[in-house]
Each structure stands twice: as C-alpha cells, then as structure tokens.
C-alpha cells in the first residue's frame, strides 16, 4: 500500500554468500594500480560477480570493508550499472537488444520466443539455474539486427527458429577470439599474449 514505508533499517534475513579469502586477495591485488582504494570499485565488483555469480548484500559489505567505504557507496555503483547482478544469475545470460534497429528486425519476436521457451521474464533466472534473460538498450551491432548476446558472445541476425540450437550449444557463450595485447587481465594472472 502506498502509505506503507519499506523497512530499510534492518538487515535482510539472508545476506547471501560473502567473499572468500582468495577472492579478497584477488581484489587487494588491484590496490597498487590505483591512487585510491575507491578506484578499485569496478574491478572488485567484477571479481566478486565472477566468483559468486552475482553481488550479494554480504559481498557488498565485504567490498566496502576492503575499500574502506560505507557499504551504501558500493550499493550505489552496483545498482547504477545494469550488468552487475544483485540476485543470483544463471550460468548463461541471454541479452536481447530492445533498441530501434533490432526491434524493427524482430527482436520482440525473439524476446517472446525466449520468454515462452524458458518460462522467465526480464531479469529472471530459470529454476535449474542454467539461463537468465535480460533486455539491453543496445548491443552496438545494428547492422546485424536482431542481436542476441549470450554471456560474452554475440550472435547476429538471430531468428526464433535458431533458438533451440543456440540454447543447446554448450559453447554459445564463449568469446571465439583470443584477447588482444591491450587486454588488461584482472587479478594479476598472466594472460596468453598475442593471437
């Protein structure tokens, strides 16, 4: 009801998983790269999301402690960016563009097909935890509309008919290209340089 106020004073009953010592160490490895600890916010959130699949309340608190910030400052950044998840995410995240070019080329049909096939709506996850679905403002490939992104891999000119094959493909989310020389690998691991 509109006159009722949400209680924000008490912590949620389930704060979700926290960060392990190894993950915290990974985040600390970023500190020497920046002038302030605050600047490590985005890499730290990436590391956390990679480790536990999303950014839990507990993880936000852990990061706040590491970066010596109030936890609200972490929540501010997490909620600003749509690609940080604040609730559990499936193994593969399907992102459909909802901007003009893709819409004209049938993105809404594609979205409808995904929603009926998986039985989930925007920003939801299938019960088996395999797939999550979200819409995206633009995937920057209007010339190949409609586009569908699965984790890091972009699929172009996707029709609803191709969907079954795409969902069944175990590698549909792998970026096919190796990283470029300019890629700055997180948490200090040595990347394979060159192509």
């Amino acid at each position: 009801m509109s006159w009722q106020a949400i209680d924000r004073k008490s912590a949620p009953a389930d704060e979700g998983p926290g960060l392990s010592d190894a993950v915290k160490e990974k985040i600390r490895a970023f500190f020497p790269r920046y002038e302030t600890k605050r600047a490590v916010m985005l890499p730290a959130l990436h590391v956390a999301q990679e480790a536990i699949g999303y950014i839990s309340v507990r993880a936000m608190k852990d990061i706040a402690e590491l970066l010596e910030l109030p936890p609200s400052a972490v929540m501010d950044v997490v909620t600003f960016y749509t690609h940080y998840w604040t609730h559990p995410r499936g193994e593969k995240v399907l992102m459909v563009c909802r901007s003009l070019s893709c819409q004209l080329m049938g993105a809404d049909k594609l979205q409808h097909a995904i929603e009926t096939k998986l039985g989930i709506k925007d920003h939801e996850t299938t019960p088996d935890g395999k797939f999550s679905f979200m819409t995206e403002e633009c995937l920057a490939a209007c010339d190949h509309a409609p586009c569908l992104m699965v984790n890091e891999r972009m699929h172009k000119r996707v029709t609803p008919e191709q969907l079954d094959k795409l969902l069944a493909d175990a590698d549909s989310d792998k970026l096919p290209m190796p990283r470029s020389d300019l890629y700055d690998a997180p948490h200090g691991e040595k990347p394979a340089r060159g192509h």
Partner: protein
Amino acid sequence: MPKITVDGKQIECRDGVPVLQAVLEAGWDVPHYCYHPGLSVVASCRLCLMEMKMPHPQTKEMDWAPKLFPSCQTPVKDGMEVRFASEGVASSQSHVMEYYLVNHPLDCPVCDKAGECYLQDYSEKFGHASSRMVEDKHKNPKKDIGSKTLLYSDRCVVCSRCVRFGDEVAGAGELRVINRGHRAEIDVFPGVPLENELQGNVVDLCPVGALLSKDFLFQQRVWNLRSTPSVDPTTSAGATIWIDHNDDRIFRVRPRFNEKVNEWWISDETRFGWKYVADSKRLNQPLQRDNGAMKPLRWEAAPELLRRLLDEAASADQGVGVACVLSPMLSCEEAWLLSTFVRSRAPQATLVTGYVPVSGPDKTFPKGFKISAEKAPNRRGVESIIKAMGGPNATFEQFVKSAGDGKFKLAYVTGGYPQVWLTADQARAIGKVQTLITHDLFESALDEYATIRLPGASWAEREGSFMNADGLIQPFERALKPLDGVKSDGQFFHELVGRPGLYRGAKTREAMAEKIPAFGDIFVPRPEPEHAH
C-alpha cells in the same frame, strides 16, 4: 571585490563565490535545488541556468552565448555579464520544472513540507499551473531509513543534497543514490540506517518533502508556526536556532545560519533537546517551608520575603555567610540581575559558578562542525560576570565543600538543567545551609532541604543572551509564555532588584554594559539571503 552585471544591473560580489550565490545575495530569486553554499557543487538540478556573454568565436565581440550555463558552477569574474531575465532562461526553467513534476505524486495536502516546499514555490513562480502528464506515474517507494527520519522517495527530486551532506559534513555517508535515470532514488544500505549525530539536518536540507522528521511528522502545518530566533541551550557551542512554535508549544527546532559558529547545521542533541520544556514533571508552584511542610507561596510575596531573609542573614557580617549559585543555564542578564541583587544586600556574598555538566570529549566533524562536550550554554558568561563583580567567589565543588562545613547561613541555588544534576551526597552537604532557596525546573535532591523552592522557566520562555565557549555573546528571544504558575527568571530577578516595569533582555543588557563594558558587544549572525535555502 568583483563587479558583475546581472540583467543590466551592476552588482558587487564577494570574491570566489559562484554567480548563483552572488545574485541570491543581491536579492534575485533564482530557482535551485542542488546548490547549497555549505556543500560541494554538482550542478545537477539544471534550474539555475543563466545566459552569459562570451567572445564570439569569429568576430571576438562579446555576445550572448547560445547555450545556458549553470550559475552555481560558474565563479564570478570581474566584468562578466549574465542574465536571468530572458526568454531562453525562463523557458528552460519552466521545462525543467515540468520534468520535476512528471512523477511527483502532488500529495501536498498530506505533505509536511507544504508551505515551505520549493517544488510549490518554483512551480508557482517558474513552472506551470497544470501538468500535461497523462501516462501513469512511476512511483518510488516510501522508506523507513532511520530512527528519526523517513524518506518518501516518490517526492524526491534527487538533488543529492542529503547524500553530499552525509559524506562531507557528517562524514558518515549512509545515504546514496541508487539505480539511475527516472528510477534513481535515495537509499540507505539495508541494515545500515541513517544514524549519525547530525542526521536531522538532511530534513532541513531537503528542498521538497522527501526527507521527513518522524518527530515532526503530521504535527503541524508549517504556516501555523511562528519562528523565534534563539540560541542552543544544550551545549556551550552556542549554535543559533529558530524555535518553531504555535500556541505556546514548541514543534521543532531548526538551525539559524551563523557564519561564526554552526553555519547551516545543528546537532540532533540541539534539534531534539527541547523536549523537557513540555515535560509534565516541571515545577509550577513556588513553595515555602512552614513548620517542616512545604506550603504554597504567592509570587507577589516572594521578593519581599527574599529581601527580608537576605537582610537577616547578612546583617551581622556583610553577608560572608551568604552564597549565590549562578547556574550556567541562566542567561548573562539573569545572572547579572541575581548577583546584583544578592550583592546589594550582602556585599561579601560568595558568587558561585553553577554545576557544569560535561559529557565525553568534544566531537569535530569533517568540515569543522563541533559538538561541544560542555552541556550548558553559558558557563563563560556566568564566569565573566562573577569576575567583573569581584569579591568572594567559588567553584561549585568548593561551594559544596564549604556548605558541608557549615560555612553558609543562606544560599540561593539556581538550577534549570534538563537532567538530574546533583548527587545525594552533594545535596546533603548543601542541605547544611540554614536558609536554602532553590530555583529549578524539576524536583531535585535539594527539595527536602529547601526553605523556599521557586519554579524556573525554560530557555524558550526567557530572553537574554548566552556567551558561548569562544566568548561570543548571542542574544535570544522569548518564544513561549512561561508555564502556568511559573514566572520567567529574568522577570523575577528584575523585581528582586526593584527595577520598574517589565524585564526586557536588550534593556537589561544596556544597563549591564554600563557596568561591564564587555557585554555591550553582542554578535548577531548575518541573515541568509531571502531566496537562498
């Protein structure tokens, strides 16, 4: 001092201020939400936009630049020319106002801010009378974000003043903006509520009705309130405040801008420290001991009785056996009147600085706001008066000790503290005084020893001045009529001294300054510009 031209008029401004601050100080009403002189500038509300003359890129002639500039983020520069009275600026203001009201619930009839809300004021002056919005409104939720504060985020304009206040002034940073775009809202981290000691200020800072004080919620429409300038009675810092009251009841206390002490802020201690004024346990009847029992005493008979008692006690030895405890809760004027009265009858009477409550160390916040550990407003004022009066004097501890040793025949003890201020041991020692006159707000351990017990008035029912810990003498006015049966301390002392007419703080101060010149120099903070907020 730079001179700038605004709407064709030349104004002089302070160095280094933004154009917005300069024009507000010169009397312009420029709409603004996010700008606050005490906080960093973010230029996010886009309401204070202005036109500015700049050199034309080709001809190099000075001409009006085609785009608008945020006046809060543009520092004044000698010779600059800006204008607010133009079609471009007016149209921008009206469009921005329309955006602000797109999702606003327009629930002014139930909103505490109505009447002092800058959405209302600016809509009236710069916006539209009606909305063109036909779509469903996006509705952000109402949130309980702390023990003293509610957040109605559907009314919020996301100016981020509260967020910056929490970061920069309070140093706690509990409030943040979450999400973005039209979904942006202010929030606290779940389980980390807004609980810093300056949190009440975010309610004053909020230009709309989004942040609300639970204490003031639905208590009073603001247009029924009258504001009286006053000074914080809870600590020795001397923060200046407004007492908002109606029908002799205080409803809230707000900060009053003071460039030397508290700037735009007050602590929650000051903000909510007035509750004792309305306490039902307050004394409201003068009493006199008659054969062991306390019997009512008429106020009219009290001065004569006190004079007689004092004369009896002082007749033999010039009043060596007389003491007068001047509480640091008294105003300078009251302390002066009372000590003048006592010394006029007993020239060798001992003047005592009353008990000074101290709690913890001083606290300093990031931008320099201080919460003083000394929880009485006028210790320094009372000390200066005692020093200026000369003659015997004592600290409170010395007084208690000599009273216990039976040195005093008569003592006039003023209290006026909102909290318990005496231990039973201290009371027993003071109780050795044969004739004990107490003047206090609440019952105390002294009552069983008192010969005469007079009810005191709270600071809101009195007038005068307090000298803060830095020696600033700041006058305060009377906001309320004293409780039924209570006479304001100043008026009573005025009658004791035998002065004609009614007690007035300013008049008494003049008379006092003739004897003690230091009290001629009072400090009144400069008023904030009319349209600033």
